[in-house]
C-alpha cells in the first residue's frame, strides 16, 4: 500500500490486502476471546516491546544506524514518569499531574535520544553499536548508584496510570487498547514517514552518505532528527512500559534487556515496520512458555536455539523467511495454473506469461 495515497484522497479500503484487514479485525477483537493473561501479559507486552524495537528498526532499517540505547531512552521516560509524577517509595515523586508528566517524559526522552544521536552519528556500523552500548551501560550503572534522584538499586514502585473517563487504564482490556493505539499509530507513522521526503532522504543517506552530502543534504542533521523521532517512539513505549510494570529499577534498563530489544528487532526483521512486532510476539511467547516445553533448567537453551535457527536460516529474520517462502508458494500455485493452460497458450503461440 502506498502510504501517501492515504493522504492524497485516493485511498479506499478496497486497496487493503485482505490479510491486512484480517489482522486489524483480529487485533481489535482479540480481548473478546482471550483471557486477561493473554490480553495483558502477552498482547499488551508484545505491543510495548514491539514499539521499542520499532524505534530501533526505524533507525537501523531506514537510517543504517543500529542503536542499542533505545531501551535506555524508553527507560529514561519511565524513570521520569516516576520522578516527576507520583510513586510510593518516598524518593522524588514531585506529584505533577499526568498531562504534564507524560508529555514531559516523552519529550525529554526524545531530546536524550537526539543527544545520543549527536554523539554517535559520526560513527558507522559496529562503532555506532559500541558507542550506544556504552551509553546504555553507563545509564544502567548511573541509575544504580545515584540515590538522590534515581533511588539506586531499589528504583521506584507504585507508579500508576491515571484513571480517566472512569476507566482504570491498567485493567487488561483498556491497557491493551491503549497499547494497540500507540503501537498502531507509530506503525502507521513509520510506514508513512518511510515514503516521505525525509524518510527517502534518510534511506538515501543510509545507502550513500557521500553522494547525499555532495548533493547538498545535511547528513548529520537528518540522522540526529531520525534519532529524535525514534526517541519519541521509544519514550512513549517507555511510559507504557512503566505503567505496565508499575515499577522501574536499574534491572529494567540492564544490559540483558538492551540486548533483548536488539534480538527482537533482528529476529523479526529490519526491513519493514511489522518485523519488530513479529519478533516481539515470538520473544514474549517463548519467554512465557518455553519453561513449559522442556525441563526448567534448560528452557533458556530453547529460547536461544529458536533465535539461532531463525537467524541462521534467514538473515533477514522472520520477515525474510516469509518473503523467501512466499514466492515459492506462489510459484507452486502458478505452476499448476500454467500447466493447465500451457496447451492452450502453445496453440495460440502466445509468449510466456508475464511474471507479476
Amino acid at each position, binding site marked *: 500500500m502506498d502510504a501517501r495515497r492515504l493522504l492524497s484522497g485516493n485511498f479506499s479500503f478496497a486497496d487493503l490486502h485482505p490479510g491486512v484487514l484480517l489482522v486489524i479485525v483480529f487485533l481489535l477483537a482479540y480481548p473478546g476471546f482471550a483471557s486477561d493473561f493473554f490480553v495483558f501479559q502477552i498482547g499488551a507486552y508484545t505491543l510495548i516491546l514491539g514499539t521499542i524495537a520499532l524505534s530501533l528498526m526505524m533507525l537501523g532499517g531506514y537510517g543504517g544506524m543500529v542503536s542499542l540505547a533505545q531501551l535506555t531512552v524508553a527507560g529514561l521516560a519511565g524513570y521520569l514518569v516516576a520522578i516527576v509524577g507520583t510513586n510510593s517509595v518516598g524518593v522524588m515523586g514531585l506529584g505533577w499531574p499526568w498531562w504534564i508528566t507524560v508529555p514531559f517524559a516523552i519529550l525529554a526522552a526524545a531530546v536524550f535520544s537526539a543527544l545520543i544521536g549527536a554523539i554517535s552519528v559520526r560513527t558507522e556500523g559496529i562503532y555506532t553499536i559500541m558507542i550506544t552500548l556504552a551509553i546504555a551501560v553507563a545509564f544502567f550503572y548511573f541509575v544504580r548508584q545515584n540515590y538522590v534522584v534515581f533511588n539506586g*538499586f531499589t528504583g521506584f514502585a507504585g507508579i500508576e496510570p491515571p484513571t480517566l473517563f472512569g476507566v482504570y487504564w491498567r485493567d487488561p482490556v483498556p491497557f491493551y487498547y491503549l497499547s494497540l493505539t500507540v503501537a498502531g499509530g507509530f506503525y502507521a507513522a513509520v510506514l508513512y514517514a518511510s515514503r516521505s521526503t525525509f524518510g527517502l532522504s534518510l534511506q538515501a543517506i543510509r545507502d550513500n552518505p557521500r553522494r547525499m552530502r555532495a548533493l547538498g543534504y545535511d547528513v548529520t542533521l537528518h540522522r540526529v532528527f531520525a534519532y529524535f523521532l525514534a526517541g519519541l517512539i521509544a519514550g512513549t513505549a517507555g511510559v507504557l512500559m512503566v505503567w505496565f510494570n508499575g*515499577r522501574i529499577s536499574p*534491572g529494567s534498563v540492564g544490559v*540483558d534487556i538492551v540486548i533483548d530489544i536488539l534480538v527482537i528487532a533482528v529476529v523479526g526483521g529490519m526491513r519493514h515496520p511489522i518485523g519488530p512486532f513479529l519478533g516481539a510476539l515470538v520473544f514474549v511467547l517463548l519467554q*512465557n512458555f518455553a519453561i513449559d516445553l522442556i525441563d526448567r533448567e534448560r528452557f533458556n537453551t530453547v529460547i536461544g536455539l529458536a533465535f539461532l535457527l531463525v537467524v541462521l536460516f534467514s538473515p533477514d529474520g522472520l520477515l525474510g523467511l516469509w518473503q523467501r517462502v512466499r514466492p515459492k508458494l506462489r510459484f507452486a500455485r502458478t505452476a499448476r495454473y500454467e500447466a493447465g493452460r500451457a496447451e492452450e497458450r502453445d496453440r495460440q503461440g502466445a509468449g510466456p506469461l508475464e511474471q507479476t
Partner: protein
Amino acid sequence: MRRFTKTTIAAVAALSLAAPALAEDTIKMGALATLEGAFTVLGEDSMRGVELALEEFEYTAGGKKIELITGSSDASPDSAIRAARKLVEQDGVQILVGPLSGSEGLAVKDYAKTQPEVTFVNGSSAAQDTTLRNPSDNFFRFSTEGAQWMAGLGEYVYNEKGYRNIAVLAEDYSFPYTQVFGFLEPFCRLGGKAPVDARFWVPIGNKDYSSVIAALPDDVDAIYVALGGADAVNFLTQYEQAGGDLPLIGGSITVDQTVLGSKGRTRDFIIGTPSAGPISDTWDDPRWSAFVEAYKAKFPDGFPSPSLFAHAYYINTKAALLALNEVDGDLSDGGVKLREALANLEFETPTGMVKLDERRQAVADIFLTEVIEGPDGNLLNKTIKVIPQVDQTFGLSYDDFLQYGQVSRENPSCE
C-alpha cells in the same frame, strides 16, 4: 429397553458426577525461583528444597494430588511479577511458593494484593518490608528475614569479642541494608560505634576492592562484611594480599559453604570469623542431620549440604502442604480456610519450631556460628549458640519497632 435406558441414565449421572470430582482431585502449586541470571545456582538449589518437601508428602496433601508448575525470574522485580502473573493467571495455581530475592519479594507482595483468592507463601526472599510495612493478607513467610538472621551477633561481638569500633563493607541494595541494620542495632545500643563514614557500599559484582581497602580506617577493631558469593571471595583474596589483618564479622551469606570451599590462603585468616543465620551446616541435631541426609540422598549432584535457599523453600513449601492437610485440600472457598490454617500453623522444621506473628512473618530459631578448621582440614561453621524464637521486631512492640525507621545506608546512625 427400559433397563437399557435406566443403565444409560445411571451411567450418564455417574459420569457427570465423576467428571468435576476428577478435576478437583489435583491442586496446582506454583514455585518461583531465579532459574536464570546471576542467582541461577541458588535458584536451582531452591527448587531442590521444594521437591524435597513435596517428595516427603509424596505429592499429595489433604487427599489431593499436588501438581507442581515452575516459574523462573532473573532476580529483577519485573521478571518476578511476570512469572508470578503467568503462574497465577495462565496456569491457574492456587498456591504460589516464591520468590528468592529481597526486591522480588516486595514486588510479589504487592502483586498478591491484586489476587486475593490465591495464597502466596514466600520462598527465601528476606527483605524486611515484605511483611513489616503494608503486608498483604494472603502473603505468608515461614522463613526469617535478613535482620532476624543477625540476631545475637551484635551482642556476641560486643560482649565476647570485645569489639567497640567497627567498619562496615556491604553490597549496595536492600538485603545487605537489612543485615547491617540487624547487626548494628543491638551493637550500637550496647555502646558500639560504626560511624557512617566508615561504611563502604559497593555494587553487586564489584571486582576491585583496592580503593575500599585503602580507605578502611586503622582505628577499628573489626570489619563487618556483608558480601555474597564471588564478591566475598574477591574481597577476602584482595584484603589478604594487601596485608590486611583486622578480624572479620560475617553476614549470613558471607562465610557460607560457597566461600569457605574456595581455594587459597584466605582460608587461614577467616578462621574465627563469627556470623549468624537461619541455618548452621554443622548443627549437631537429629532433625537437621535427617534433613541433610535426605537432601544428599535425593540430590547427589547438589551442594555438599543444603543452602539456606533450599532450607527456606523447603520450610515454606512444607508449611503450605501441612495447611492443605489440615483443611483436607478444600480450596472451594477461594482459600479462606487454607489461609486461616496457615496463620495458625506451628510446626517442627529441620531448624526448630516455626510459628507466625500477626503480620504472617516467621518467628524461628537463629544460629550464631564461628568459622573453624574441621578435622579433615576443611573450613566449617561451628554452632556457638542457638538463639531461640527470634521475632521480627526484636522483642519490641510493633509500633516501637517502626520508630527505628526503614533500613537504609544510614540506619542506625550509630554515632
